[in-house]
């Protein structure tokens, strides 16, 4: 199954959600194989238990692809909603939000469809001073007892937590429907993307906050787990109204609530009622949330992407803000002090690989040592060590890589081997004429022993004949089979010329009819006539028996 096509360059696709087909839980896999054979059809059964695990109370930092506003960033973020991009696109929908105690759809019936999953994480924005961060707290101390129960009492969990006034948390935590709306999946084109160490497939889950920061304040955005927090996440959000231009009208109702609580605390204090007494101790009501990831930013100053890019100092390499600092020549060489190998101090020129203009490529090469690449400049008399430095840094980088050294040796060894083979071939060919292909490349890949053997034998056969018959042609011509007259007699040919033609002789080859020698006449025979030939059959049987007895003797058995 292939990936849905990634978006074209410059576009992105938004998806409502991405759910994992197998949510994190414990599973039992039952496998049954029905086998049928002679005796019946038993069923082979096997049961395997396995667990699908996912981040639950902590989030590894490498799951986070990016955050906005940038971590520890300063800038005018007052119009922005903080957001976090998570590399694993299914993460927000991997765990149920309210399995233990369903929250339910909004009461006005205009919510999202019933099968629309609700994310278990939310991004909350806290102003500096509103929250306390706690590290390595036992989970029991973070969530209320009933929530801990609904989480199925996971033992020995330490997690990070954020603590804030309960009233504040209630005021900012999204309702269930809002959580659904604040998380989505993005698919972007990664073709022109800066290299990312972990690599990324272009899919991200994005969780957005619902609180807008105020200018001039410092904020911390906290990705918190809301799993089973039916005490905080409600089916209907707190009442809303259209935002009004004048902010003072709806002045800080949060503090009102707290004030009212504290007055009640004073009233309640003298009460002997134990139940109320309990309430008193709880009254500076704080609530804690499991913290998965958090980062800080400050909402002030100049620092948006736009502002930063517009205010860049743009130029070619070698442009300096104050002329002469550092001193550069017009060729972008930099003066550097150098202690040479004799120990004397000298001033040399250096220019890195990044030049402000196009340079021609040095056609001399290769260089075998750094010294070979040192140059003296005629204008100043000082040395230019740019290329020598490049050589040395290349050498050091390569030497630091053990595998590369091995591969270099392998590269040379292969060439040396082939080169030695070429040398041997040419040396051998001085003594023995070898039948080899024309090009060196093909020669190198010919299996040599048969060729040499053939060459050596042909040399032995030819012997060291007289100079006049260097290739032994005349000697060969003297043999009986090469004599046309003898052939004419032996094959009963019509003429000597015919025999010469068959031997490859050139004289009068054209227009001469060559008859094949007559075949020995043989009468047609059948299997029956052969079988009736009893003498031959007996002889065959005898030889078969002889072979069998031979085999018996060799194997030492009587059978």
């Amino acid at each position: 199954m292939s990936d849905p096509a990634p978006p074209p360059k410059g576009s992105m696709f938004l998806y409502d959600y991405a759910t994992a087909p197998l949510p994190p839980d414990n599973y039992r896999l039952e496998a049954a194989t029905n086998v049928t054979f002679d005796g019946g059809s038993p069923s082979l059964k096997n049961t395997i238990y396995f667990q699908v695990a996912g981040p639950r109370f902590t989030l590894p930092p490498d799951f986070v692809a990016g955050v906005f506003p940038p971590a520890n960033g300063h800038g005018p973020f007052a119009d922005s909603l903080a957001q976090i991009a998570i590399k694993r696109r299914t993460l927000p929908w991997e765990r149920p939000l309210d399995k233990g105690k369903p929250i339910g759809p909004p009461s006005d019936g205009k919510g999202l469809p019933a099968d629309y999953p609700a994310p278990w994480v939310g991004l909350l924005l806290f102003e500096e001073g509103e929250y306390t961060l706690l590290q390595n707290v036992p989970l029991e101390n973070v969530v209320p007892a009933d929530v801990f129960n609904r989480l199925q009492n996971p033992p020995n969990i330490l997690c990070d937590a954020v603590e804030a006034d309960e009233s504040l948390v209630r005021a900012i935590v999204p309702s269930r429907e809002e959580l659904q709306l604040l998380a989505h999946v993005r698919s972007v084109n990664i073709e022109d993307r800066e290299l990312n160490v972990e690599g990324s497939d272009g899919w991200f889950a994005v969780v957005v906050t619902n609180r807008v920061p105020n200018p001039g304040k410092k904020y911390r955005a906290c990705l918190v787990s809301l799993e089973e927090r039916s005490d905080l996440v409600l089916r209907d959000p707190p009442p809303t109204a259209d935002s009004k231009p004048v902010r003072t009208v709806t002045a800080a109702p949060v503090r009102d609530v707290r004030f009212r609580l504290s007055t009640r605390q004073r009233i309640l204090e003298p009460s002997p009622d134990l139940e109320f007494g309990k309430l008193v101790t709880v009254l500076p009501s704080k609530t804690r949330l499991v913290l998965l990831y958090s980062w800080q930013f400050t909402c002030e100053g100049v620092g948006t992407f736009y502002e930063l890019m517009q205010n860049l100092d743009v130029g070619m390499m070698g442009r300096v803000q104050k002329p002469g600092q550092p001193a550069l020549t017009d060729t972008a060489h930099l003066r550097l002090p150098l202690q040479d190998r004799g120990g004397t101090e000298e001033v040399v020129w250096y220019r890195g690989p990044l030049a402000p203009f196009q340079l021609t490529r040095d056609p001399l090469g290769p260089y075998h040592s750094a010294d070979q690449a040192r140059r003296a400049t005629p204008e100043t008399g000082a040395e230019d060590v740019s290329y020598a430095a490049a050589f040395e840094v290349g050498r050091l980088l390569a030497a630091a890589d053990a595998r590369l050294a091995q591969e270099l040796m392998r590269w040379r060894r292969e060439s040396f081997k082939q080169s030695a083979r070429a040398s041997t071939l040419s040396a051998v060919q001085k003594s023995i004429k070898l039948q080899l292909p024309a090009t060196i490349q093909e020669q190198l890949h010919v299996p040599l022993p048969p060729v040499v053997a053939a060459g050596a034998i042909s040399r032995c056969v030819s012997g060291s004949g007289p100079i006049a018959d260097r290739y032994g042609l005349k000697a060969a011509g003297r043999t009986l089979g090469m004599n046309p007259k003898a052939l004419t007699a032996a094959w009963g040919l019509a003429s000597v010329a015919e025999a010469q033609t068959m031997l490859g002789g050139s004289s009068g080859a054209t227009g001469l009819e060559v008859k094949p020698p007559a075949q020995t006449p043989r009468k047609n025979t059948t299997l029956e006539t052969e079988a009736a030939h009893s003498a031959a059959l007996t002889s065959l049987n005898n030889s078969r028996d002889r072979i069998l007895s031979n085999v018996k003797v060799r194997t030492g058995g009587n059978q």
Partner: protein
Amino acid sequence: MRPAWNTGRESLRARMSNPQQVAAAVPEAEMPPYMESFLAHLRLLIGVPFDYLVPDSRLLPDESIRFFYIDRSWTDRLVDGAIAVGKIGTREQAHHHAHHPAVCQQLDLTERGVRDLQRSRLTFLTMKAALAMDPANVITGFLLRSGAVSGWPHMDVRAYNRVLPRNYDPDAQKQFQLRTMRLERLSPGVLIALFEGVPQMVVCEEPHHGVQFGVHGSSGQFSVFRRGPDGTALGGKDVTIPVRFANPNVLGIAALRRKLAIQAPPLPGQTGSANFAVELLNLPWRQRFEGSGGRPKVMGSGAFVPFVAVAARVQEPALQALVKKVVL
């Protein structure tokens, strides 16, 4: 005893006087893949200490961008130096001498595939089979040291061999795009980019996956633009956002969704978080750098409208299977 066919001395003489050695086309003379890939990485200055690139920090001050041409002689020396490892005698020297032109040509091609290797999208062999064979070109690039690099990781960078109009569609202008050879952060705040060819226009785009959400606030009143299903602004009266009584900085997300739902169409139907997200988008910024001949200019081209598509829900079987693959 018979004399040997071939003595080491003769052989060495023959090798030294015969510059061709084994022809570069012989399979055995080819570079082993690891070596070829290492040297191709070196060609793009990967692994070279930053001080060698920028010998003085004042050459790349804070909040600056510097364009450059790569000095090919410098990178050639870098490769020579790397090959010098284990070069102990005249034999290796003669060998390198004979093979230098072939090595050089091969690396000119292989360096184009380094980015694919870096992103582990291809294996070395598939990368080599797919290499473009046109002759080596000038390599240019820039170094950017800015808060924008650390604050907006994974920004999109493209270089073009001509100046394109505003709001151009990157997909349609692909044929003018220069091949990106390297795009990498050297440190949290420094980005290096290398292109093949001389660009007339370079753009840096705010990262798309970080396309932000935002609202327009003026003295406590928040509103959003009306946007069509593909993110284009429709104009008309902005939609004011309800806020919670309890905390006026907390947006009434559910209430806003109901307000937006009334206006569909032309606004997208509020079927889920993706369509909701379209309405809350803030435009990413596309920064252009134009001009050449040593005088690049910073040009503000205005924010651009990304083409947003809201895909159907993940119920599609193809995507579900894919999700399965990711999870397992």
